[in-house]
């Protein structure tokens, strides 16, 4: 099939503002949008710039806004997105070049929620035990690949990048609900900040955008409830 990709371009060395450019390629319906972009880069215009690595939705490099919604280019097939595809960078982060954004503000929020296991007790000789039930409590949020689809689909984040954002809350959730972890109080304290979970307006764009099908809004609500009950 013939596919037309309308891509937002921006070269910081030449352009003062982003602009749109259209490319037409031959593609299979089962090709990924990423295949299309790479094909353009290889065959038509080597200056087209995006990030990509694993190409099957596990590394989180190629989050972009495709036909108006955040997705991974490698998890979007032309048969679902159609043959007229609009591709632009994810919103709310500075655009470096074409589809590449500066992920640093995003990573800063990620680091701010203590996204690491905290348990200062001397570990046992073998594994720490954890029941299957306790393990399942945070199963879903361990799937996060830090692609940024959720945070950059959030209208609150677009309005104010002080908001810690869904991805960071998901990462915190993964530890807050881990029965082995002892850092929950500190994380809840951080997330109770005015720029923490309370800026979530329950909009669901994050949940809809998550390529790992994490129920992000639900995870955020669980954190909110946890803070509420710890304060009341």
């Amino acid at each position, binding site marked *: 099939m013939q596919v037309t990709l309308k891509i937002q371009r921006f070269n910081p060395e030449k352009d003062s503002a982003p602009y749109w450019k259209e490319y037409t390629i031959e593609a299979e319906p089962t090709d990924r949008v990423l295949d299309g972009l790479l094909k353009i880069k290889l065959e038509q215009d080597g200056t087209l710039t995006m990030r990509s690595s694993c190409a099957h939705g596990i590394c989180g490099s190629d989050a972009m806004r495709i036909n108006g919604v955040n997705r991974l280019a490698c998890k979007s097939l032309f048969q679902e997105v159609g043959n007229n595809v609009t591709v632009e960078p994810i919103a709310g982060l500075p655009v470096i070049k074409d589809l590449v954004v500066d992920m640093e503000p995003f990573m800063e929020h990620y680091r701010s929620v203590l996204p690491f296991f*905290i348990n200062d007790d001397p570990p046992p000789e073998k594994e720490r035990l954890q029941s299957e039930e306790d393990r399942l409590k945070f199963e879903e949020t361990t799937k996060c690949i830090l692609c940024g689809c959720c945070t950059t689909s959030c209208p609150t984040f677009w309005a104010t990048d002080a908001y810690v954002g869904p991805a960071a809350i998901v990462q915190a959730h993964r530890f807050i609900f881990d029965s082995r972890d002892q850092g929950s109080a500190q994380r809840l304290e951080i997330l*109770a*900040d005015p720029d923490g979970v*309370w800026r979530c307006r329950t909009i669901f764009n994050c949940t809809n955008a998550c390529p790992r099908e994490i129920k992000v809004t639900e995870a955020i609500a669980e954190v909110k409830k946890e803070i*509420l009950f710890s304060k009341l």
Partner: protein
Amino acid sequence: MTTRYARTPKPSGSTFEVLSWFYMRASGALLALMVVFHLIWMHYVIGLTNIDFDVIAGRWTGPGGIFWRSYDLTLLILASLHGMNGIRFVTDDYIHNRGWRAVVKALIALVLLLMVVFGGLVIFTFNG
């Protein structure tokens, strides 16, 4: 004792934010019922075209006066706080300049005060 990893000083205002969040839900639930009832009462039971001074006066001074005065007062306080807090959220989202944000928030607080004072005054002091 677990090591303290938080690199920032203890975040301020966290209790206020959680209470504000909780208040929006608690008052919201109550307001939803009260306002829907209020609207149905004024539009269906009274009828918009029939509203006049006597209707309002009768409401506060008639046989159910105590009930209506408490109902309206509750509505006034819950709604003013809910509404102005909502505007505060919007301010936090969209106004990033610290100075402007403070000015707008002060304005919101002032408006809130005036709403409760003016509204309360009439509900309490009205004597026909």
